[in-house]
């Protein structure tokens, strides 16, 4: 079994990761110099809206990018080893015992014509060379751990015979089968009802603590981040624009985009009061302007934003924001 590193080094360290996509507009950069680090037992949220590059970042880390996309720079270090430098066989060895991923849509992520027992047993068969019988016994154990009732009898059931929540449990079971050091969860509860979502997030939290995993939670949901993550990296147009401990970032956001997102959450705004939306929409990847990508939507925009691309700069210990005015108070709150 893998033993969690007790040192203070991050379990996963991503640095300067860039991904380019071949499109009809030519090569576009979907992920641009993304960097973050996660330690064992901690959860980092990659927060952003659709198209910001958060899922593509996850796919690049686990090596499951679509063929039209390719990594053009950066490093992904798992306990010090750069996985991007490994060959395919080397990466496959890591997939499962070191690094694994829970996908958003459990119905498409599971094989519809294979029993869930066979699918759950597969990692044990391949990586641990177990016999079919032993692997199935392991599969049943896993199903029990993730809260699937009557696991032995359900080994021979097919994915469509499970509810959405149960399918998500199956995917989580598969992802944690080989005790990975790092678990990526790509919108793991987006397709689920709230009461089931709460159950699944609780399960992930338990597993993280029990197995001392580092978790990267990819989500668009600010409330999920507030409740389940320790650190957050806010992404916009392929870049990390703000990062830091969740409590600090949400209590005092330094990037106008983070501030705008927080103000768009309807819960706290009374009936009839206007929500503070962010004007316009995110730029198309092939038409990201020079300077700051957020300039067209930003209430604090100035000339420098149209010419100079703001880098991620420290605003406080452990916090950084990519804004020319990160240390300035917002113009109007």
């Amino acid at each position, binding site marked *: 079994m893998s033993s969690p590193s007790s040192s203070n080094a991050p379990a996963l360290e991503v640095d300067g990761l860039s991904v380019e996509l071949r499109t009809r507009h030519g090569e576009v950069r979907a992920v641009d110099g993304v960097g973050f680090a996660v330690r064992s037992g901690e959860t980092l949220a990659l927060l952003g809206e659709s198209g910001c590059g958060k899922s593509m970042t996850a796919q690049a880390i686990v090596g499951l990018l679509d063929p039209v996309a390719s990594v053009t720079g950066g490093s992904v270090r798992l306990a010090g080893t750069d996985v991007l430098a490994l060959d395919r066989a080397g990466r496959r060895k890591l997939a499962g015992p070191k690094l694994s991923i829970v996908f958003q849509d459990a119905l498409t992520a599971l094989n519809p014509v294979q029993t869930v027992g066979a699918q759950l047993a597969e990692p044990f068969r391949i990586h641990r060379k177990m016999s079919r019988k032993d692997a199935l016994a392991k599969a049943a154990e896993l199903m029990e751990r993730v809260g699937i009732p009557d696991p032995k009898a359900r080994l021979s059931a097919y994915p469509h015979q499970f509810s959405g929540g149960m399918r998500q449990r199956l995917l989580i079971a598969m992802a944690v089968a080989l005790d990975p050091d790092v678990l990526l969860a790509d919108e793991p509860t987006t397709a689920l009802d709230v009461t089931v979502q709460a159950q699944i997030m609780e399960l992930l939290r338990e597993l993280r603590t029990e197995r001392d995993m580092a978790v990267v939670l990819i989500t668009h949901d600010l409330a999920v981040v*507030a409740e389940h993550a320790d650190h957050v990296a806010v992404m916009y147009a392929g870049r990390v624009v703000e990062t830091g401990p969740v409590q600090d970032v949400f209590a005092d956001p330094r990037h106008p985009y983070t501030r705008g997102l927080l103000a768009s959450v309807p819960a706290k705004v009374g009936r009839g009061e206007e*929500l503070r939306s962010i004007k316009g929409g995110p730029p198309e990847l092939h038409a990201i302007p020079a300077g700051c990508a957020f300039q067209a939507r930003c209430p604090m925009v100035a000339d420098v934003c149209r010419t100079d691309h703001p880098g991620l700069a420290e605003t406080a210990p452990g916090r950084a924001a990519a804004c020319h005015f990160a240390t300035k108070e917002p113009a109007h709150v």
Partner: protein
Amino acid sequence: MSEPTTNVIEARGLAKTFHVPKNKDGKDRLRALDGIDLTLGRGETLGLVGESGCGKSTLARLLLMLERPDEGTLRFDGVDPFTLKGKELLAWRRRVQMVFQDPFASLNPRMTAADIIAEPWRTHRDVVPSRQDRRKRVLELLDLVGLRAGDAGRYPQEFSGGQRQRIGIARALALDPEVIVCDEPVSALDLSVQAQVLNLLDELQRELKVSYVFISHDLSVVRHVADRVAVMYLGRIVETGTAEEVFEAPRHPYTAALLSAAPELDVSGARRERILLEGEVPSPLDPPSGCRFRTRCWKAEDTCATTVPESQAGAAHQAACHFPLEPAVSG
């Protein structure tokens, strides 16, 4: 908010059963709705909340007359729309319109924005009879929903998700409806764009005095838009009241659990006491006897299995529960 003087919609005891292929226990009747009482005031927003399969979309389809109820009565301004025929029916239909969830699937990719918005007039010819007026009205509608005149000739795929939803809203408004059923109108949109569309719906309501039936699984959205809320579970309404009553002092255990399950944007660091429900929603093919929530309820007793709990008649804030929660002690 002024107190609505009249109700646009009054429903009593609506029930709907679907016949489905037999499951392994030989059940082939899916009771999607059961004993639904509902009112919608003029200019009011009624939030319909519940998890998938609770019947909220079926209820919306009944209100739009896309389905016929098996039992119960539906009154629209005192008239039962299911008794209408011909011209009267056509005239009624224009009074209730719909905004759909998926702005990508609900717009025909081969029609321009202007054609999409004008399409309802192909059926309802007398709303805007002349071709010239139609063009003018389309531009007015585009302006009303915050799009530009230049957008009229563009196709859906040239718009972002939020803009597409604006087109869907303009189409719903083309017939000057009194009621718009919004089925998860912002759930496909990003947060920053969602806020824009919610603000638009709110402005339109003030301006046009239209009523909304607002279906959503997102409690924070409903809390923001709704005057009153109805919480559904397995085909029944388990709690109704003003948005404030239901959200601040839920009386039905299911409502309380639903509210506590929704993650909150609270960074004070304190973890809330959370009611984590066991299991999942039972199959509507074989709902539990008595109270349908009893299999997951921590307050359930024997009587819950035998007697269907009734809502307290007449009260504004009602919960269909034998052991409703006490109004929360403030503080």
